[in-house]
């Protein structure tokens, strides 16, 4: 299970935040579950912005999860694009989804379950990344499997082993993944900007379907609270 960490680099975070706002392509990511279940992220933006994003997400284009699911085609990337343009997002949407399961957050706003995902496939980004506390994130695409690993900082120690996740779904157009560590499933939303990668992970869910049904992180305006009310974790690319 990915672990959050307290390290924060405000300057870096703000630059990431601006990059995120500029890159509407990442508006796919809206909402995210418990941050402490995932690689954390340096905070981005202000709380006020997040609140606004949250409210916009709720107000966006509510629909039931069921209807959202039924209305989407496997290739409904357009829904995400729509979501991006609408600036929808939100913690509020996520919370609704989490509590009701039929959260009316998806629809055209794209905040509902992932549908434009393919089994396995190559990661959109590979390499070695490290956060400000030197927690390392390794992303690899092997011929038959994509994986990512979280490695604690410092010399390898038996008391702090790494975590490895097998990517079960890669979702277009960008950085959403459904991954499993063999016992639980997670949704991860990624934001890449240059050499930096912001990550938000959901809490553990029991099944792949449940993970697919999770709402995305909120990327609309800020990543400071877009990950279930918590900041994304920002990693910087390092040497392979």
């Amino acid at each position: 299970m990915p672990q959050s960490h307290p390290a924060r680099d405000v300057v870096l975070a703000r630059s990431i935040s601006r990059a995120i706002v500029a890159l509407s392509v990442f508006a796919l990511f809206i909402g995210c579950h418990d941050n402490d279940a995932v690689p954390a992220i340096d905070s981005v933006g202000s709380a006020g912005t997040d609140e606004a994003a949250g409210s916009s997400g709720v107000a966006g284009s509510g629909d039931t999860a069921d209807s959202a699911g039924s209305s989407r085609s496997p290739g409904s990337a357009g829904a995400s694009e729509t979501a991006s343009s609408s600036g929808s997002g939100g913690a509020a949407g996520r919370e609704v989804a989490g509590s009701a399961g039929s959260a009316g957050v998806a629809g055209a706003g794209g905040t509902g379950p992932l549908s434009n995902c393919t089994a396995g496939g190559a990661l959109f980004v590979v390499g070695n990344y490290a956060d400000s506390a030197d927690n390392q994130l390794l992303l690899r695409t092997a011929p038959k499997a994509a994986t990512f690993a979280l490695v604690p900082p410092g010399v390898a120690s038996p008391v702090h082993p790494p975590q490895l996740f097998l990517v079960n779904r890669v979702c277009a157009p960008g950085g959403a993944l459904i991954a499993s560590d063999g016992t639980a499933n997670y949704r991860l939303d990624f934001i890449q900007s240059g050499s930096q990668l912001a990550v938000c992970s959901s809490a553990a869910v029991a099944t792949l379907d449940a993970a697919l049904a999770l709402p995305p992180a909120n990327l609309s305006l800020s990543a400071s609270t877009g990950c279930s009310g918590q900041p994304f974790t920002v990693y910087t690319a390092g040497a392979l």
Partner: protein
Amino acid sequence: MFSPPAHLLLATLLVLAFSSRASAVDGYSTQPPYSLTLPASDLSYGTAADVFDGSITIRVDGFPLRGRFLAAVGRTIYLQKNFGADLWLPVATLGPDDTMDPCFIKISPNGKEIALGVGFYKPLIVFETALLSVSAPPNLRSAPGVKIWDENTYDGAWRGNRYLFINAGADAGSQLYAIDTEGTTGAPIPIMPDIPGASGGLAFDGAGNLVTGVGFGYGTTATGQLKIWPASLVDAALAGTALSYPESGKVLIEGASSAASLGFDSSGNLFVGGGDVFGNSHQYGYAGLVSADAVQRVLSGGAIADPMAPADYVKLQPDPCHNDDATNVWYAPSLGMLVVTANLTSTPPDCARFDMTRSGPSGQQFFSPSAPDTDSDGIPDGADNAYLTPNPDQKDADGDGWGDAADCDADNDGVINRSDLSSLMAAFGSVTGEANFAGGYDFNHDAQIDLADFALFKQRWGKNAVCE
């Protein structure tokens, strides 16, 4: 280590020639030879060694002891890194003023205790195997729990896991005594005070019968005489009724090497090593095997073993020069593995008159037909650098002792860490035969790399890279 040099192949042919006439060693010649080189030191005249039985489950910093050699030379005790590997990990040391010359190292039957004869008129040290460490080799002079007896030693043998028997003495006479290792520094128990000659080796068979002999003979006693005593007399000696060499026991054979380095295999065959270059007895340059049939015949009152009768006695000669001053024999029962080491400093056609020790003794590993081959790749476990993963080629590209087929230490730094994780990820999802399959990460040996393997990888994280 696979890939025997030419002279070892020649030696094997010699062994085959002998064994074809003797049922007792036929089994050991049915498989290819595998070579082994023990560690050496300029501080020591020779290298002592013993091998953990194949049933031992103890590990040292993750490294399994099962079937691996322990070697003592200079000031250091080494553990063989892996089956078939000539790589030796320091696991204990002596003090800066100590040297082992010559010495013995003997592992108790249950693998939990180790006896070290530091050398001629040097102390006897007994310590728990658990003290050994790859990451922080202890100094046996100062480590807690180490028992030291200030007794002379030449060779030793465990009788059970409690009593250690020692043969020690000087030219004209030697003695056999026992140490109760469960005591602290209790006085030695006299077993046989009157051996007419320099110390030889000693060994017990599975029933507790004792064999010892004359390492270097004077007067009427010849070098290489071996005698056998029934277990009941040994029990009596432990209870206080010492044995007399001349007046008890039965002569088993005469002129068997120099009667040093004795041991029994699980069939009851007696192996004899030694080397008497000083005495000009011509008992050097080979090891011998006294068949189990001959041993039992003598024990029951029959004729002594005939060195010229192949059914009674055969020679194992790992060195085609036959000029070694010390040819030693070890046996790991559960692995069906017999190892004969010799000094191969000179080789044909430039054989020296004698090859003295100091260089790392090289040896051959012989395996019985019943020797386990867990991965069925034709390489017996005791010589297989990946005994759980079929790899008949035994390739080890980085020379780290782990066969490529089971090498989990990608960066060869001795620790399971991030670079190894990266390699595992590169192989993730692959199955045997695919280009990116890396057998070293198939920890559960199910021919695929998946999360189950990562679960086992995680258990090794930050620990010594022990690849099985």
